């Protein structure tokens, strides 16, 4: 038996994404009424779309074993992990601590997405950005953001 080998890793990856989304669309959409063509239910269009995505993903899966493609670039964990954490830091601390402190903390977390971190420089940057964001967004553009933790 000939060995089956992945030839297009990027295509395989995309195929898996499509298949997962297609199946999720069908499974989580199965309770939605399909209706009929003349009287489309809430499940009609989503089911068709999910089916198409699944079919496309399956096609791409087969393709990835036949046609050569470029390899997947290495994933660097540090940038994506710290950037995502910094977004969540902002999202969950803003209402507790206010913009001044949160912007400062977020800058410090985000700065660690790079390898060489100059802490002193980032403290200055954090202070600068926190003042700047209050001036621009709260004073200048009057966005309803809490400035300090005692604001609410």
């Amino acid at each position, binding site marked *: 038996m000939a060995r089956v080998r992945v030839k297009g890793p*990027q*295509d395989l*990856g*995309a195929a898996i*994404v*499509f298949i997962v*989304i297609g199946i999720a*669309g069908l499974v*989580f*959409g199965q309770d*939605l*009424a399909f209706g*009929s*063509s*003349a009287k*489309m*239910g*809430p499940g*009609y*269009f*989503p089911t068709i*779309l*999910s089916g198409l*995505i699944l079919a*496309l*993903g399956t096609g*791409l899966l087969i*393709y990835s074993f036949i046609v050569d493609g*470029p390899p997947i670039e290495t*994933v*660097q964990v540090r*940038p*994506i992990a710290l*950037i*995502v954490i*910094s*977004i*969540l830091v*902002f*999202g*969950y601390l*803003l*209402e507790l601590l206010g*913009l001044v402190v949160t*912007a400062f903390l977020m*800058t410090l977390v*985000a*700065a660690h*997405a*790079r390898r060489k971190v100059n802490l002193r420089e*980032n403290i200055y940057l*954090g202070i600068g*950005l926190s003042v*700047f*964001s209050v001036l621009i*967004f709260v004073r200048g*553009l009057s*966005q*309803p*953001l809490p400035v300090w933790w005692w604001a609410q």
Partner: protein
Amino acid sequence: MDINIIHNLATGFSAALSLQNLWFALVGCMLGTLIGVLPGIGPIPTIAMLLPVTFGLDPLSSLIMLAGIYYGAQYGGSTTSILVNMPGEASSIVTTLDGHPMAKQGRAGAALSVAALGSFFAGCVGTIFIAAFGPVLAGLAQEFNSPDYFSLMVLGLVMAVVLAHGSVVKAIGMVLIGLLLGLVGTDVNSGVTRYTFGISEIWDGIDFLPLVIGLFGIVEVIRNLEQHDEHRVPISTKIRDLWPSKKDFQQSWPAVLRGTALGSVLGILPGGGAVLASFASYTMEKKIAKDPSRFGKGAIEGVAGPESANNAAAQTSFIPLLTLGLPSNAIMAIMMGAMIIHGIQPGSAVMTKHPELFWGMVASMWIGNAMLVIINLPMVGIWVKLLAVPYRLLYPAILLFCVIGVYSTNNSSAQLALTAAFTVFGYILIRFECEPAPLVLGFVLGPIMEENLRRALVFSRGDPMIFIQRPISATLLVLTIALIILAVIPQIRRTRDVAFQE
């Protein structure tokens, strides 16, 4: 008819020339130039980020500002391409090929001014294009019914997929996933919630901003962080003679004309827009040149053509959105989102119901282009200085502005969690070479497409033949099929790939 256009333009100018609107045009152009100059942040996240800020403005002012950011970025992107060999914008990548060699030869001033003046000319022509063709297309759109709209969107999405670079199959997948994501939330027809998993924040559907900021803005930051630090050394030669020599002028004006014509046409096509136009124009200039070997070594046509083309396309890509309600690229999808937020349904009705809005925008584009020449030419030194700001200081600021923008839409932490989720999703897509732009088009069109499909099928009592029986719909579907056939013919695909590799 002609008198009408003049009358309409007069209405537009009187609206656009108000002090407030001039101010927002200036702010938009300045911001656009800024992001055009700075690598690592493009017009898509910037416009998305500023959306919440414009909620409080009147619709015309906010659209003027957002549009200014878009075409401002086309101007600004050329500056760094020429002086530093670093395109700030995807649509300025080809400008580095000949613009930077020109700068090395001490002709930076000529390259900059040809780019700016070519862009200005193209912008003016693009504006006239909108004024002339807008009403014609809008008139045509009045004849459209649900089946026709559905077929139009199919054609638009297929065209966007075919003209986008990369794999066609993956792009179709992205469109379909976008359509599906667009359906998340409460179904307007039945009141049933779909795919919300009990999360109350997405009962009204997934918000536009977390999706766009996550997929474009933050993923872009992460990609930049994964690359090594680049040294950005501006060309040290003084930008003395901004005015091009007579020879430069003679060589560049035909290229400007060709670039403008090509860009205007490619801008209207869905999936076209500024990036495709600049690449196509460069390829064309190289093909028709008497001595193609000059290209890559400082041929002024290689700057004049693409720079004119990208700006013309940036203008005319507004046509399908303002007349048919069809966004032709991701940026137009965001503009569509902005219009809907302001309670304006994009489409042929914009021109009849809100003439001051349509013509005000057209007029503001001309004003904005004039402003941009001034912002870019005499002030070029200031913009280049900005490049001295290292990326390690820049990206935390970009991130912070992105999250503040997302939070401001409805002051909820859940939006930030959603942004984080789309960041991870976008990162996965990029690793598998899936472009997220078609997804955004699908996302915006999802609910509209479903509604038109439903109406069409209710009308025909479930008979899908209605899409072939109506002449407009049938024509659009025939075009769609023709396009698909063209796309799968390898010959065509090869030339398409070549155009993007140049």
